[in-house]
C-alpha cells in the first residue's frame, strides 16, 4: 500500500465522456513518479482527479490509508497535498516573499523558518525576495511556484508540466531542484512532456494512453523498454 494512491479512477468533465478510466497511480514518500503519455491521454486529468478538481465517477483516492475522495481541493490541501498548475501558478503581481507567505496562508507558526528553508532550497528566491514575480524569468517563476507549493510543508507534491516552455539548461536546473525536494521526504507526482529527462530522474513512471494505464515500471525499465521507446520517446 502506497502513501498516496488513486485507485481505479474514472472521471471526466461535466457530462462529457470519461477522460480517464480505471486509471491507477500511486506514490510513496521520497519517490518521484512521472506520468507520461501522448497528448490527450488524460495525464493532467488524472492528476486533477487526485487533487479533487474534478469528481470521480468511480474509484477512490487515499492518503496514508485514509479515503479522501469526497474532500474538495482546499480540504485536500489541508491534508498535505500541494499542487503546482501548469499555467498561472504564481501570483504575478505580488513579490516573491508575498507569494511564499500566501503559500503558507493556513499556517500561523514558524513562517520565517519555513521561508528560510525555501530560500535554502532555491537560493535565487532569497536574492529576489522583494521583486514582483511578474518581472522574473520563466525558470525563476517556476521556482517561485515550487516554493509556494512547498510552504504548506506538504507530504505530496503534484507538478503539472513543471518544465513546460523553459530552455534545456533551465529544465536541468529545475529537475535538480525537484530531486532536492524529493530528498526532503516528499512524494512527488509529475506530468511531463520531456519524457526522457523526466524518466531519468524518476523512480517510477506511468504511461497513460486514452485514459488507461498502458505501461508502468521503474524509470530505467521504461527508458529501455523498446515499445515505450518507439511510441513515446521518439527513438
Amino acid at each position, binding site marked *: 500500500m502506497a502513501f498516496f494512491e488513486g485507485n481505479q479512477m474514472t472521471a471526466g468533465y461535466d457530462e462529457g465522456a470519461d477522460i480517464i478510466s480505471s486509471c491507477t497511480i500511486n506514490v510513496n514518500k521520497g519517490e518521484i513518479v512521472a506520468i507520461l503519455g501522448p497528448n490527450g491521454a488524460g495525464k493532467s486529468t488524472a492528476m486533477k482527479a487526485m487533487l479533487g478538481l474534478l469528481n470521480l465517477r468511480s474509484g477512490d483516492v487515499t492518503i496514508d490509508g485514509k479515503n479522501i475522495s469526497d474532500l474538495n481541493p*482546499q480540504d485536500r*490541501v*489541508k491534508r498535505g497535498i500541494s499542487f503546482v*498548475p501548469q499555467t498561472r*501558478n504564481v501570483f504575478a503581481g505580488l513579490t516573491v516573499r*508575498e507569494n511564499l507567505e*500566501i503559500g503558507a*496562508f493556513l499556517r500561523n507558526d514558524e513562517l520565517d523558518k519555513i521561508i528560510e528553508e525555501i530560500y535554502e532550497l532555491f537560493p535565487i528566491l532569497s536574492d529576489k525576495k522583494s521583486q514582483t514575480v511578474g518581472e522574473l524569468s520563466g525558470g525563476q517563476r517556476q521556482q517561485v511556484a515550487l516554493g*509556494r507549493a512547498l510552504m504548506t510543508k506538504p507530504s505530496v507534491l503534484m507538478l503539472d508540466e513543471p518544465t513546460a516552455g523553459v530552455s534545456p539548461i533551465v529544465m536541468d536546473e529545475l529537475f535538480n531542484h525537484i530531486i532536492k525536494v524529493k530528498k526532503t521526504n516528499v512524494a512527488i507526482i509529475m506530468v511531463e512532456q520531456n519524457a526522457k529527462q523526466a524518466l531519468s530522474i524518476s523512480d517510477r513512471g506511468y504511461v497513460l494512453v486514452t485514459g488507461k494505464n498502458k505501461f508502468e515500471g521503474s524509470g530505467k525499465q521504461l527508458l529501455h523498454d523498446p515499445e515505450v521507446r518507439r511510441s513515446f520517446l521518439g527513438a
Partner: protein
Amino acid sequence: MEFINAIIVLLNYTIIPALTYGSQLALGAIFVTLIYGILRFANFATGDMMSFGTMFAVLLTFYFQSLGINLGLLPTALLTIPFAIIMMILYMLLIDKYVFSYYRIKKSPPVQLAMVSVGVMFVTQAIIRIIIGPFDRTFLDGQKFILKASEFKEMTGFSEGLTIKSTQAITIVVTIIFVSILFWFLNRTKTGTSMRAYSDNEDLALLSGIDPKRVVLITWVIAGILATIGGILYGLDKSYRPFVYFNNMLPIFAAAIVGGIGNPFGAFLGGYCIAFAEIFLTYAYKKFLSYLLPEALEPDSLMQVLSTDYKFAVSFSILVIVLLFRPTGIFKGKVI
C-alpha cells in the same frame, strides 16, 4: 508681486478645488477598482451607493442637530460617519447576499454582473428617493472657512485673497489618513496580501487555502467605508443632491481606468488626474493672465478652453483616449 497674485488666483480657483475634488473622486475610484479587481465586475451602482451612505449621514446630521449635538467648529456630519458606514455596509452585504452572490457562485461572466449592478443602481436610486426624496440638501454646519479672502488680504497685503474652505481641508486630510491606512492594510497585513493574491489569481488563491467568502466580505466592508466617506466629503463640499452622485460615476470610472483598473494606487492618482484635467480645462484664465501679461496684451475673452458645462466631456475624452492608446492605464492594471 503680480506674479504671486497670479499664483494665488490659480491656487484659489484651480489647485485647491482640484485637490479636493480629486480626493473625492479618488475614494470612488478605489471603490470601483477594488470591486473590479476582487469581485470582477464594473459596479454601475457605485455612484448611488455613495449617495446611499451619504443619505444616512444627512438624516443623522439633522437628527443630531435637533438633539443639540454638534462638533463645534467642525461639521456634525463627521460624527455621523461611523453610523452611516455601518448602514452602508449592511446594505451592501444584503445586496451581495441576495443579488450578487448568486451570479458569483454561478460564475457568470463579468458583463452579466455589470448588468445586474445596473439593476441594483435603479433599486438603490428608488430607495433613496423614497427615504429622503430628490431635493437638494445642505448639511454642512460649523465653521465654513479656515482662511477667508479678507483675512488673507489683511495679513499679507496682496490684492488677491486666498480662501480655504473647511470642507476642502477636511476632505484632503480625511482622504490622506484613510487612504494611507487602506494601503497599509492592503500591502502590509496578511489579510490585505490575501486580498491582492485573490485578485491576482483566484484559482491559486483557493488552492493556497484563502477563504473566498472572507475576502468578499472584507471587500464589501472596505467598499462601504470608501463609498460613505467619499460620498459624505463630496456632499459636504457641494451639497447633497442624490442625482449628482449618479453623474459623478463617469469621472470616477475614468479615474479608475486611467490609473489601471484593479490597481488601487493607480485609482488614487487617477482621481487627481481627472480632477486636475477637468478643472484646468474649464477654468477661465483671464484674471490669471491679467496679472502676468503687460496691460497692452491683456486678453479680452475669458481665456477658457471649455465651458464648465463640458467638464464631463473632459473625463469622457480622457477615458476614450486611455482605452484607445493605453488600455491598461498608467499603472498597468488589467486590460478591459
